[in-house]
């Protein structure tokens, strides 16, 4: 267990920090350390809180994105199956990373894929059992609320898949930007 790593089910401070300007607000700046998962359940979640201004909304003047950076390691005994790491704000998912565990010549290999509004679909391939993932995406419209917001990280692992460790890095966080999603069309509003 690393220094400052929190394994609590929910992490709360007396007064969640306010995101009140453009820029990236990391978990560290919001007052949180890296977040570890026990990886013992099929589905595990960890949550942190932050606040947004009274008139916060997903566009058209300010747009909010998730920055999700994490390190994941699969157990050598893992069988071929799937795992997902996701993030949501107020229950609305904005990050979904799909891992596919494969065995080739008895060696564990991890492929993963992401889809987001900035880069579209990206496939990653590795011949190792570990992955360092960096991802960002625009939040759902309903995932942005004035006042208190809850950011939840979720690990799902199925059947023979065995995640040995998952650490959400505190370089993850929320970005506020004036730049709308690509292909966002004001005529459709």
């Amino acid at each position: 267990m690393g220094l400052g790593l929190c394994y609590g089910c929910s992490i709360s401070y007396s007064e969640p920090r306010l995101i009140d300007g453009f820029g990236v607000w990391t978990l560290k700046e919001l007052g949180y350390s890296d977040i570890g998962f026990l990886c013992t359940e099929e589905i595990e979640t960890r949550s942190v809180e932050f606040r947004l201004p009274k008139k916060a909304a997903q566009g058209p003047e300010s747009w909010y994105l998730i920055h999700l950076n994490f390190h994941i390691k699969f157990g050598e005994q893992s069988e071929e199956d799937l795992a997902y790491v996701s993030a949501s704000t107020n229950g609305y998912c904005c990050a979904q990373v799909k891992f596919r565990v494969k065995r080739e010549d008895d060696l564990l290999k991890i492929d993963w894929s992401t889809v987001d509004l900035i880069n579209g679909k990206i496939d990653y391939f590795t011949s190792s059992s570990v992955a360092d993932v960096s991802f960002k995406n625009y939040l759902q419209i309903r995932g942005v609320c004035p006042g208190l917001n809850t950011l939840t990280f979720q690990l799902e692992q199925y059947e023979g898949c065995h995640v040995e460790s998952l650490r959400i890095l505190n370089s993850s966080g929320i970005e506020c930007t004036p730049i709308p999603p690509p292909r966002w069309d004001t005529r459709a509003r």
Partner: protein
Amino acid sequence: MIRKTALKKVILIAVGIVVLVSLSVNSALAWTASHLSTLSIEEDLFRNYDFGSDWDNYTNCSWPVTMLFWNNAEIDKVKSQYRLRDWILWGYSEWAKLNETGDDWIWDTDRGVKKPIGLNFIHMRVYADSDDQLYNISWGYYILGTTHYDKDGETKCGWSEEAEQQAALVAESVPGWGVVEDWGNFYNYEPLRKEVDEEGNEHWWQCGGYATAVYVP
């Protein structure tokens, strides 16, 4: 409940209805839909029926889109929950036409998940982009589904509305999933009617036009 009511506010826009007429009927699996349309949500577009092949024509339709799995959905994730509940078989591939980039349309194929009920089956196919994931800021990560029954050795197929209700019941049994039956108008209403091909296979159209929305946490 907040999520369910909020989702209802999302407006689906039917942006076009195919009215091209074709006299060719070249496949036993091609049937004639009443309301083939393109629907849009944010920057995404999709056709509101699946097809017997990669030919976009109202005479080549198979089944109306009756299911929307949204928020944190993905093809394998959704199928795995149905397989855990005895939807352990699959059928032949059908095709769905989607457009997530705003540029090019793509075709996705799926064989679905299928549950035996006596000598009959209930069958659901689910579609996304070829990567099994779709995303927009209204529905999050979502996939689309069609539903129907296969009866009498698959010589009689259809009843999508009743099959949708069965698929919704399964979704309700998954911990954490939230279901709103007949949530949104997908503009694919089909009154109960029968089509018969040259070999005597019966295709029973039936759809209320409103798809069921399933929140995946």
